[in-house]
């Protein structure tokens, strides 16, 4: 992996401007702007229907926006997404790998789709690192939730992505396995300098992993900042209480100053703003 692509720092890894998505009369995403700096871990939080999955889908190129622009790793996703799809990956507990294939078969297919050289060796390496070597011959459909999550994570890492989009990376995992997955992700980001954008409902996870948090409600980003800054700004003890305040509209239901982009969005520092 070329270091330049990870740490050039001149442009953000993700740059979104004026992004809208309407399904008939429903505004799923309503004019959002944000940047994600190279090498940072950023959370996209919000209740059900807030627009997180729609946003992730547009970033992945699965969904065309109604309006706005998306730049990922320096490429315009609406014009030239194939230039970047090989350098990113994603994982979601709601999108499973085909059940009837063995774990190794599933991962081999994806390794080849991503053009990974020595695909079988890469799959075996991931199986060792993620501790599921004994499962390689098992049918994917026969795995437990925790095992499936490890395999899904291996699929998301098979091409050594520079940018990882994760939807609920530890959903339905027991605390021990969830902690193990978080540690692995931290280690991966450190080692590879990778950028992560994750959607999660687990606030403890977000506090632990993320440099920045963006709060979404009704298709808009209603607040953003570091976990610590948000907790202080709302006068709460933890991010979960902040989440509840925002989800229930206790921030006044409008985008405060802090929700605007900082002047230099690539610096990765705290974004200060007025308390709601």
């Amino acid at each position, binding site marked *: *992996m*070329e270091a330049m*692509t990870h740490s050039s720092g001149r442009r953000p890894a993700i740059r979104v401007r004026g992004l809208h998505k309407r*399904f008939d009369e429903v505004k799923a995403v309503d004019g959002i702007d944000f940047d994600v700096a190279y090498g940072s871990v950023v959370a996209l939080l919000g209740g059900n229907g807030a627009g997180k*999955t*729609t946003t992730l*889908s547009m970033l*992945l*190129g*699965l*969904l*065309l926006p109604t309006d706005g622009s998306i730049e990922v790793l320096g490429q315009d996703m609406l014009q030239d997404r*194939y*230039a970047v*799809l*090989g*350098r*990113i*990956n*994603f994982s979601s507990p709601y*999108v*499973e*790998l*085909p*059940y*009837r*294939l*063995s774990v190794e*078969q599933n991962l*081999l*297919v*994806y390794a*080849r*789709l*991503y*053009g*990974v*050289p*020595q695909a079988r060796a*890469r799959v075996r390496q991931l199986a060792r690192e993620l501790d599921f070597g004994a499962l390689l011959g098992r*049918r994917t459909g026969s795995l437990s939730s925790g095992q499936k999550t490890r395999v899904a994570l291996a699929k998301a890492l098979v*091409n*050594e992505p520079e940018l990882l989009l994760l939807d609920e990376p530890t959903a339905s995992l027991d605390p021990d396995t969830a902690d193990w997955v978080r540690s692995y992700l931290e280690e991966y980001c450190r080692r590879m300098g990778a950028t992560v954008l994750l959607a999660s409902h687990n606030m403890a996870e977000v506090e632990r992993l993320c440099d920045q948090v963006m709060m979404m409600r009704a298709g808009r980003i209603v607040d953003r900042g570091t976990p610590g800054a948000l907790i202080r700004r709302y006068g709460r003890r933890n991010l979960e209480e902040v989440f509840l305040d925002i989800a229930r509209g206790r921030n006044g239901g409008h985008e405060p100053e802090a929700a605007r982009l900082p002047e230099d969005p690539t610096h990765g520092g705290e974004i200060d703003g007025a308390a709601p």
Partner: protein
Amino acid sequence: MTPRQRTSILSLRRIGALILRYWYLLLGSWPRFVELAYWPTVQMILWGFISQFFYTHSSWVVQAFGVLLAAVLLWDTLFRAELGFSVSFLEEMWSRNLGQLFVTPLRPYELVLALMGMSMIRTLIGVLPAMLLAIPLYHFSIFELGLPLITFFVNLMVSGWVVGLIVISLILRNGLGAESLAWLLIFAVAPISGIYYPVDVLPGWLQPIAWALPTSHVFEGMRAVLIDGVFRADLFWNAVGLNVLYLVIGTAVFLYVFRVARRRGLLLQIGE
């Protein structure tokens, strides 16, 4: 390990990866594997006995005992080609994997090429045993058609892919509620393709529609070889021209529906 930074616009590796996936699926279920050859074989046996009966009662069949058998084997080629194409796509829908595939560098037309490749593999697995079994059972070898057999086979494969493209476009647009089209739509083509009887048997108003189908030209060509002993180049080229035209239209329709699917979020919401 250095993943490719730029991806080629057409990658045999990605197409091969998908074909490998469908091959794994096929190998993973022996009933599905056996079923591929089951129906063509049963059809061939059934029509073989019917042909034997007619052999002693019809002067037309006496001229070419193999006409009905060849017709049923080539019809199965068409049917299996379409089914092999559509069912491989349905595998992605059933496993809700389409969204996951299209966040890789896979292009939609590479998916189409992979479906074509797998369709050819499934058709050969399905039809070859029946073709071979007809030799000891009825002393009829379709391989005696020689070179024309290859032209018939290729044309019918392409016709099957065209119907498959329409089927998967409708399924992508309308969800799995439309999956039965994979088995139904091809039978709408059968009565007017002159499979078991010449096109001039059809009512006059229906004949232009029949001649607009490449399949009619293939089956008429087959009868010309078996009954008159001549290879009709005009029928062959008509079939090729129509197949190319419909293949281009079918591909364009699929790519259009794929874009609509991206606009409406259908790649994420695959279901009934």
